[in-house]
């Protein structure tokens, strides 16, 4: 993973859209993301938690082709850091196949809540 701090390596924006709905940020990822894009998304979301006073982050990962150890850890770190700043994170859209792979990988996911889909995820955040 190579993250450039400087402007030397400009690249296309992360293929994900972020909507504000009340105090929640609703994130849908459009395609597979590489490590750098995942990190950029993580940082962007943390910034927004501060800027927009968000209380909840809902991330739809259905478009991610895999959730490998790096992706899981990046999401878990996001959830932890967001929590430190007063926002809760829920991940939705994990397909049965991806779930199976995650179990075999046996990566722990502390602090990260998951729900089946957007609707249930929103219920988690408002309850």
């Amino acid at each position, binding site marked *: 993973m190579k993250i450039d701090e400087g402007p030397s390596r400009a690249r296309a924006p992360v293929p994900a859209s972020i909507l504000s709905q009340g105090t929640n940020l609703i994130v849908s990822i459009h395609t597979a993301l590489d490590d750098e894009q995942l990190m950029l998304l993580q940082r962007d979301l943390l910034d927004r938690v501060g800027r927009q006073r968000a209380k909840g982050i809902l991330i739809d990962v259905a478009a991610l082709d*895999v959730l490998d150890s790096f992706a899981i850890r990046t999401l878990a770190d996001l959830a932890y850091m967001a929590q430190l700043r007063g926002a809760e994170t829920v991940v939705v859209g994990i397909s049965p196949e991806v779930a199976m792979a995650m179990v075999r990988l046996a990566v722990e996911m502390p602090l990260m809540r998951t729900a089946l889909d957007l609707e249930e995820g929103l219920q988690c955040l408002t309850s």
Partner: protein
Amino acid sequence: MNGAPRVRNAAGTHHDEDLVNLEPMVRRVVGARVKDPHAVDDLVQETLARVVAARSRIEADSLPQYAAVTARNLVASMATRSIRARERSHLLVDDPEDEDAPVADVLLREERHIVMTALAKLPDADRLLLLAHEVEGQDTATIASGNGSTPGAVAARLFRARANLRVEYLFAAEQLEPPTDRCRPVLRAISSADRRRQQDLDAAGHLLRCTTCARLRALLGARRGEQDEEGVVRVPVARDADVVLARQKAREVAAEVGFSATDMTLVATAISEVTRNIVKFAERGEVVLTLIRHEHRQGIHVVARDVGPGIEDPEEAMRDGFSTCQGFGLGLPGAKRLMDHFELTSNAGEGTTVTMEKWLP
């Protein structure tokens, strides 16, 4: 420009006599190099036509010399064209369609020079064989009877000679010299698709280390598309985005084999784990995906190799919870749990190779 009297084309027909006088000499020059009588006729006519076309620019007394040089060049360019026609893929430069266009002429001249340089670099046996077959038009049976061999053996030698010529052609065309003693043998093994020899030479490892060979290999395969060998997909890995590409390609191959969505995801996830280490720790590497068959079963074979610092203690790296200074584990134990077969070999200072397999249930 000097003041000597010039022979002009428009001056009249009396110069046709010159041509008539030139013809036997041109025929001798061509005949000494080309065996096929039809080709000899064509080349003689072509030479004379060019002499006529150039006559206005040439001193009368240097016409014979000009004719001889033209004849020799035409023979050489016919050799080029004939080698091309026989195996179009190996010269890697598009045929100039219009041979009369000035650009095509320049291309041909450069092309000829490259081919000649390449031929000169070949071992004598290869060169003589190619010239006998491609230029003089001798068939394999004739060549075989000439040296007490068999047509099959001659054909095999021709195949290798052409493969070697492709390599020398590229060195000449790219104006490169092989940086190591290993380069020529490796590229020749690749050019002749000799997998065993490639393995003996560790061609894959050399290609990762040697940028010259990597570049020439890409040119060798340029006409054969991404899948250079049947059922083999190669993904060069240097950046984060390549990890995504590698696992997408793996999905395509796995889909071809008929894997379920779950198994495709397991394979893609395992590849993601091992490929990330190439980007993180090594300069560059590659992922090679191959369809495999054993009896009635099918599967996917994955090799992820890199040129990098290597892993000092591979056993330790395979233990859960092992993590590097970056704070992340290598993901290797996880990848192993996703696949049916997993093997890690690493030499400190040289690089790491992970070999994995997944079989259809």
